[in-house]
């Protein structure tokens, strides 16, 4: 394989991993628990910026080339871990403002507003993260392998992304298909029943908000390290919609389904558009991607709202044969 083909395949693989991780984060919030987080892309951005600032050297050392906070030159796994912590902390703060008191339709709208405000702030306050030009020259952890070729370094990073995705996947399975996951689905299906069983729905929402935020941040950190640059144009608020489409197409609440949805929607559409006979005008291609994403969402909501690989609804055959009252006590949350 030529170097260019290898790089092309590696890029696609990295994008698949990154988008699968992010979509799982949103699935945990929206698919499993039913929290509508329209600021999701903000947490991916927070992770990307954190990873960049932690791995870059001090801002002054760039000779006025770019301005940003922190800049402490941390070695490999620390920027990723830092990004996840910041993503979780930011989620906790925003969750505290929105999830606790507001009615749920306001929550969704306030998230949207927060996402836009964050972009405006990042664009206008240059000292924060170099304004709308964004950060560049973000170090890639593969540069640790100084003696190897560029190709080896790229494949090393692909491996890193795949490992991250697998770890997140295992965590997702453990969370979703467990008694805890049943509580989360309960919050989505019947909040009152969950509360009656002595579980706090607000607490569950806060928890998935924080976990999902950390996953979004991890995906952003990997993406920023791979591209080597990160700017506000990467995370305008409509980008969140792509992840919603991935979750809906894949199957809300289904871990494997959402992985397929993420690969199809976030990477597949973009690749498919390249081969469409509509020329190569970048604006037209981007517009086409959005139109297809929108249409796909509408089509799936109409024809197959459960998605490609639907969430498996566990059935309790024996419970049904008992008296209804007892069956309800055993399994009240409609899983």
């Amino acid at each position, binding site marked *: 394989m030529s170097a260019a083909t290898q790089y092309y395949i590696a890029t696609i693989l990295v994008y698949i991993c990154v988008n699968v991780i992010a979509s799982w984060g949103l699935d945990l919030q929206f698919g499993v628990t039913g929290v509508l987080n329209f600021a999701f892309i903000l947490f991916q951005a927070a992770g990307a910026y954190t990873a960049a600032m932690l791995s870059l050297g001090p801002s002054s050392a760039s000779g006025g080339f770019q301005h940003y906070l922190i800049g402490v030159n941390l070695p490999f796994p620390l920027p990723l871990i830092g990004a996840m912590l910041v993503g979780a902390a930011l989620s906790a703060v925003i969750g505290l*403002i929105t999830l606790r008191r*507001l*009615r749920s*339709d306001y929550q969704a709208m306030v998230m949207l507003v927060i996402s836009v405000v964050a972009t405006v702030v990042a664009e206008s306050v240059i000292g924060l993260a170099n304004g709308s030009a964004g950060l560049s020259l973000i170090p890639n952890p593969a540069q640790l392998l100084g003696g190897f070729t560029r190709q080896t370094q790229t494949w090393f990073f692909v491996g890193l992304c795949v490992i991250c995705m697998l770890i997140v996947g295992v965590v997702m399975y453990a969370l979703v298909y467990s008694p805890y996951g049943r509580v989360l689905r309960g919050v989505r299906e019947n909040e009152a029943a969950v509360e009656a069983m002595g579980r706090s729905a607000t607490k569950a929402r806060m928890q998935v908000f924080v976990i999902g935020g950390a996953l979004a941040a991890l995906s952003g950190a990997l993406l920023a390290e791979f591209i080597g640059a990160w700017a506000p144009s990467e995370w305008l608020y409509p980008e969140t919609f792509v992840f919603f489409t991935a979750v809906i197409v894949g199957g809300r609440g289904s871990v494997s389904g959402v992985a397929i949805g993420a690969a199809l929607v976030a990477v597949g559409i973009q690749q498919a558009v390249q081969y469409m006979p509509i020329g190569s005008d970048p604006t037209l291609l981007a*517009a086409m991607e*959005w139109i297809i994403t*929108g249409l796909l969402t*509408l089509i799936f909501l109409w024809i197959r709202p459960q998605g490609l690989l639907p969430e498996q609804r566990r059935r309790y055959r024996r419970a049904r044969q008992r008296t209804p009252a007892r069956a309800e006590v055993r399994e009240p949350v409609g899983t």
Partner: protein
Amino acid sequence: MAVFISAVGFGIVTAAILAISAVGFTLQFSVTNVFNLAFGSVMTLSGFVAYWLNSAGVNVWLAMAVAAVSGGLISLAINEVLYTPFIRHGLNLFGMVIVTISVAVIFDHGLQAAVGPTFFSYVAPAGKAFHFADFILTRQELIIIGIALVLTILVQIALQYTRAGKAMRGLAVNASLARACGIPTRRVIALAWFVSGVLAGVGGVALFLDISTFSATTGSEFLIVIIAAAVLGGIGSPRGAVLGALVVGIVTEVGAAYWNPELKDVLAFGVLIAVLLVRPQGLFSRLATERAITR
């Protein structure tokens, strides 16, 4: 002081545009409980209808009237062709939010594919500048303020005194009771979508006149500010929307005069968050919990 007063002047113009749009957004929401994120796209489409007429030589105010009607028809069509079938299909409040975003994305980018990523502007002189003390407003800005006053008062009177307005209020409070009382809910819902679209059309053209250059995504970008104003006033309350528009409009423009103009929207959103922390239902809404979609 002169800076402050002229900033308030600009704020009133922004508030006028916001009030027209936010009343349209919130009126439709109060009747149907559909959070219509395609509202910005209706503004943009009507704005472009006015643009095509305007560049063919039609006066911009006449173009605005045509844009208002086409906005109403677009809004009505979206509801009949897309939203109502999806609601019948059993989608809930949040499923419908996703549907409206999809529609917005398809419209905005469809329009962008058609007209390109460039910026457009109307051929319309701003007119003579009028001075009142330290207020400096152009003729165009005064007309926009006048239109906003007339429209918001008209909506208020219609809601208060006409049969259709009373029916809308009835639906907003209790849709099934309204239907049981013999109110033709389907027709009232259709009317609400039409009126909302008309206000979107007028708001869109007013916005494009005020900011002078616009593209295929301008309406949707401004929608966030409209939502801030509507939520601030208490979603579903036209009176609240006007108040919210005034607060957001004036705070942003005064902020722009004294602080970083790029950060003016941040101030408005800061006010929104602060108000919601104290009064989670917004200034004028009585409901502390969300309601289901009107079917």
